[in-house]
């Protein structure tokens, strides 16, 4: 994950920690399904920007942390984020050159699939399903341009490539 040769490598774990914090932020009950998938967004960015460093395994590990923090079944978000990392890693060359709006749409669709997968696991596990969680895809797409620009500026500042 982190290479000793590059000094900016620390930004990757830090960005995931910030994403986890955003995911832990308390919100009113009505806003819960509308929360953007912060961790997935940060993961998507790194898979696009540094596909050689951040990939399926990183996504899986981060997913395990998200599982523990959100009280989900161990392996649930790990599975979802591994798939998200796979998609972005495979198509990184194409998605990178999309205009930001189109990227946001792509991110929205991948998030929709990710949330649907989480719902499927919930259903199998006997946990209450909240279909409204799918709305997170919309807010994720809306927040993507902002997150993308923020992460890109942060990466450039630490000169990571």
């Amino acid at each position, binding site marked *: 994950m982190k290479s000793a040769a590059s000094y900016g490598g620390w930004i990757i774990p830090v960005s995931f920690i910030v994403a986890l914090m955003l995911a*832990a932020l308390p919100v009113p*009950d009505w806003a819960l399904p509308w929360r953007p998938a912060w961790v997935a967004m940060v993961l998507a960015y790194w898979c696009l920007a540094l596909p050689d460093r951040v990939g399926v395994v990183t996504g*899986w590990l981060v997913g395990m942390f998200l599982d523990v923090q959100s*009280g989900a*079944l161990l392996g649930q978000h790990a599975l979802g984020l*591994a798939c998200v990392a796979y998609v972005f890693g495979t198509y990184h060359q194409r998605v990178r050159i999309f205009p930001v709006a189109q990227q946001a749409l792509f991110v929205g669709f991948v998030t929709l699939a990710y949330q649907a997968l989480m719902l499927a696991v919930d259903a199998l596990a006997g946990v209450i399903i909240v279909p409204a969680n799918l709305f997170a895809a919309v807010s994720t797409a809306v927040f993507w341009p902002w997150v993308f620009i923020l992460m890109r500026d942060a990466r450039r500042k630490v000169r990571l490539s």
Partner: protein
Amino acid sequence: MKPLFTQTASPTVRLLACMVLSFILISVDRTQGALGQVRSALSVMIYPVQYVVNLPVRAAGAVVTGLVARKSLVSDNERLYRENLMLQTRAQRFNALQEENRRLRLLLDSTPSGGDRVLIADLMAVSTRNSAHEVVLNKGQRNGVFVGQPVLDASGIMGQILHAGPFSSTGMLITDPRQAVPVMLNRTGLRAIAVGTESGLWLDVDFIPNNADVREGDLLVSSGMGGVFPAGYPVAEIISVRLDPADAFAIVRAQPSADLARARQVILVWPEETALATQAGDAEEIPP
């Protein structure tokens, strides 16, 4: 020497490996809960994240408390003093009753009931996947918290501990559909089970027969069956009773006694662990 592998595993292979591992973990965690240790270990690293998120919310609360007007402090103080006085008076009677209960139990040759050890925990202002039915507490295994431990607030039973990490733990509220509390009607002694519902606003009380003497406003207390929740604590108050002649059981709804929405501090209880030890004569009884 030439490296053995010239090509690292392709992303597809990695994805498949991760998927298989995830499926294994999900099924084990779902059925056996055997991954508690793994979860506890990971929660050590997650705790700082939760702590930092909780900090500003609690700090803001502390600032607001610090700015409270002197007049309201004085009136709060007087109210608490009166409440304390009333509680102390009831406690005097309670001590006498407890002694009488213990003597009667000894006469009947049944196990004397031990005192309850308690621990106060704060609710952390973090949200989880199931925030409507789960809460995160700032006490963990380091403080003696264990999975299945009952969680109470000032007015009644709130739920039980679902996961316990070293520094924090997750409690499942009684309104969670996965949670069933063995209860007893306080007035008549009729036993039933209170189960959580999807809406999370009320509990379904099962196994109350159609011809039972049940009224709206009746209090349900924990019966202590199953050994999870200590007996005698308020659980819920009945809000509706519907009788369907075709059904053997009545459809009863109850509202939890504990203030689930507004609780900030909770009490963790160790129920009656000293009973057997006292009989054996080696352990000391923890004073109530």
